[in-house]
């Protein structure tokens, strides 16, 4: 798993990874799945959210708590070195009452046995060694406690989109090697005219391929060629930077931009690699059963009626 990429991602302040409503939190059925879960909890409870990212699920829990007059204390862990109170807008205020635990693996939760009334995780459990993480969840849940996880589904719209974006990254990074072509041109200093022209022609040809791919993607589905748009934009900005920066420094900027796209690819690869197909979710349910969880229920979770966005998995520690 490429931790660094996730840390970069969360430092950007994005709260949710998936379809969201105007408030930046999950909406419609996805939100209802969490509101339903939190609504079923007692008025005094201790909650744990694993792989919390920037704390989207704690935010929904806090909202339910406010509407019900419930008094919950919330702990939230993530393997990445997260800090939502700093990285999310108004984080200190919005996350009042939530204790974040960065750099904590779901397979090794630093809590006493039987500490929590409920454990949650959104696009979380599947990134771990699920058997080990579920064993930890079972351990830290109080008898009578409930857990709910939403995991990536191998056939979801998010995964399909991720696969497309990865293929697009491959076009930019491997097929065209766009950033290498940019790098070559911007770092040529006092080279012969012919050399400069060759590098320039090469870049123009590369950009043409990427632009055509972008147009094809947009024609297929508007907004779906984002990777190409980012790459074209980056190339133009980096070329423009030549006017104000030394070639060597621009070259470093090109490397940085390329690495950013590679990191995106790794994040998407994580996502696709950890998404669960029918056999995968069945295996997780078997692990839960073996640990002694009961009332295991699993549904396909849709957004706006028809967009498959994951599995919704609930379980109970008797």
């Amino acid at each position: 798993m490429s931790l660094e990429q996730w840390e970069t991602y969360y430092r950007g302040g994005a709260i949710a990874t998936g379809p969201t409503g105007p408030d930046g939190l999950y909406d419609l059925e996805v939100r209802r799945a969490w509101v339903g879960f939190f609504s079923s909890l007692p008025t005094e409870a201790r909650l744990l959210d694993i792989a919390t990212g920037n704390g989207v699920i704690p935010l929904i829990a806090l909202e339910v708590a406010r509407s019900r007059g419930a008094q919950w204390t919330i702990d939230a862990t993530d393997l990445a070195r997260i800090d939502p109170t700093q990285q999310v807008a108004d984080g200190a205020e919005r996350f009042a009452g939530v204790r974040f635990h960065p750099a904590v693996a779901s397979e090794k939760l630093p809590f006493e046995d039987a500490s929590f009334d409920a454990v949650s995780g959104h696009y979380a459990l599947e990134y771990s060694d699920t058997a080990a993480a579920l064993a930890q969840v079972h351990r830290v849940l109080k008898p009578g406690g409930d857990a709910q996880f939403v995991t990536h589904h191998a056939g979801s719209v998010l995964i399909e989109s991720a696969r497309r974006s990865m293929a697009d990254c491959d076009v930019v990074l491997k097929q065209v090697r766009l950033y290498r072509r940019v790098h070559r041109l911007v770092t040529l200093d006092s080279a012969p005219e012919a050399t400069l022209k060759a590098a320039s022609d090469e870049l123009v040809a590369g950009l043409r391929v990427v632009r055509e791919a972008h147009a094809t993607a947009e024609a297929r589905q508007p907004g779906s060629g984002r990777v190409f748009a980012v790459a074209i934009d980056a190339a133009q900005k980096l070329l423009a930077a030549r006017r104000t920066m030394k070639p060597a420094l621009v070259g470093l900027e090109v490397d940085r931009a390329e690495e950013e796209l590679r990191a995106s690819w790794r994040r998407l690869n994580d996502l696709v690699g950890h998404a669960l197909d029918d056999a995968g979710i069945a295996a997780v349910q078997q692990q839960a059963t073996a640990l002694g969880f009961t009332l295991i229920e699993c549904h396909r979770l849709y957004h706006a009626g028809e967009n498959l966005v994951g599995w919704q998995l609930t379980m109970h520690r008797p």
Partner: protein
Amino acid sequence: MSAGAPDAGALLARAGAEHRAGRLGAARRLIDEALAAAPRFGEAWCALGTVHADEGRFAEAVAALDVALDCGVGRPHEAHLQRAVWFADHLRRDDDARAALEAALALKPDYLPALMNLGNLHEQRGDRDAALACYARALDEPRFAAVPESALRQVALARTAVMRPPASIDDALVARLRAAIDATPPDALERVHLQFALGQGLDRLGAVDAAFDAFARGNRTLLRREGRRYDPRREAAAVDALIAAFPPAAAASSDDDRPDVDRDARPAPVFICGMFRSGSTLLEQVLAGHPEVVAGGEIDWLPRLAFERLAPFPARAIGLSRDEAARLGAEYRAHVAALFPASLDARVLTDKRPDNHLLVGLIKRLFPRAKVLHTVRHPMDNGLSVYMQHMNLEVTPYANDLGDIGHYYGQYRRLMAHWDACFPGDLHVVPYESLVHDAEATVRGVLAFLGLAWDARCLAFHERRNTVKTASYWQVRRPLYGDAAGRWRRYRAHLASLEAALRAAGVDVPDAD
């Protein structure tokens, strides 16, 4: 619509806003104005009906809908269904309810809600075949498959399964219920009906673990849908407030000078209370067999008095003068006399609501000589039975969690112990287990407490064809049976949280039945 209709429409819209804001008087005045402007404005008559219903004036509510229908209101089938609900649930006019439902179906033959209500009405009246026939129509007739309310067909399947349970674990019905559950959306209400029906079927077959699993899923679905409403602190505070409002000393001091207004009044109201599923419906059915008893069932007059007119209750009941109490008592008598004209010739009218236990202090203010029958059941069996039933969360917000049930049970017993101390000799405990295992001796004791002569017809209650409007309506159609007594032992492995909560509340949990 008449020339005045536009004004009337605007008035009605304002009335709707007032109604939604809970200002019934203001809503009614605006509707009256609308009707003055447009006397044949059917929608205004409908609105008047719902305001009357919210005021508890159901006869007037029905009359308003009658006028609305006469005026030619839109969607008349819905007006008929509404009339049927008021007839059945509040006016005890089951035949009129049935006629209203049939009228709705005549107007709109694919109006599934009317058919489902008709099935439910047949169930309450003990007409099993007629109920099953309604549900079979809902399930089999293609016209109901495509209507907007078609999810109700899953409820029809659930009710059918409850009335005609699976004969074995291999019965196709079990698989059909499971498939129906899998096919319903995760948090849908019909899923809850199916889960409880499956649980009840499996319980009868002795498949304890699978049955408990089904009940637990049903309760979880309900909790997710409705939200966990039980707040232990608030419940304990409510009981504290009742105990403070009706202290034993006050009850004792008023004992010497009880007003005599109800000394010889007939019928004497007898109040039955206890936990839900503690046998209170059964006890009332037993008493209904007595020629001098009229069974009133669940009468909502007293809770409405307490929680509407005397709100905030019990604070406002503390200062109730003796004259006011006597006047309210007379109002109660007039209300039940109108509901049960036959009761004027009877010696006893039973008012049976499990939540009467909250009102014993108030009841004794209104009727100082009133007798109270308190049904009790082994707390584990009682708790399990509540958990196994698809209860209305509005009424029993604790019913979906075994820990909450145990906590609530503790609070209820604490309050009943208080009433016992306040009114010694006026409360009589009727253990469910005695009622099913030693019916005659138990019933003799109850009748003696009420000053009634023994009558053997009390024990033949299951042959009676009256209407039972509680969750118990099929149990009371069967001869007294003991298979539900001690059931908790079979489920004990699943009941740790109930037992822990009961013990934490100081409730005695006897190991013997």
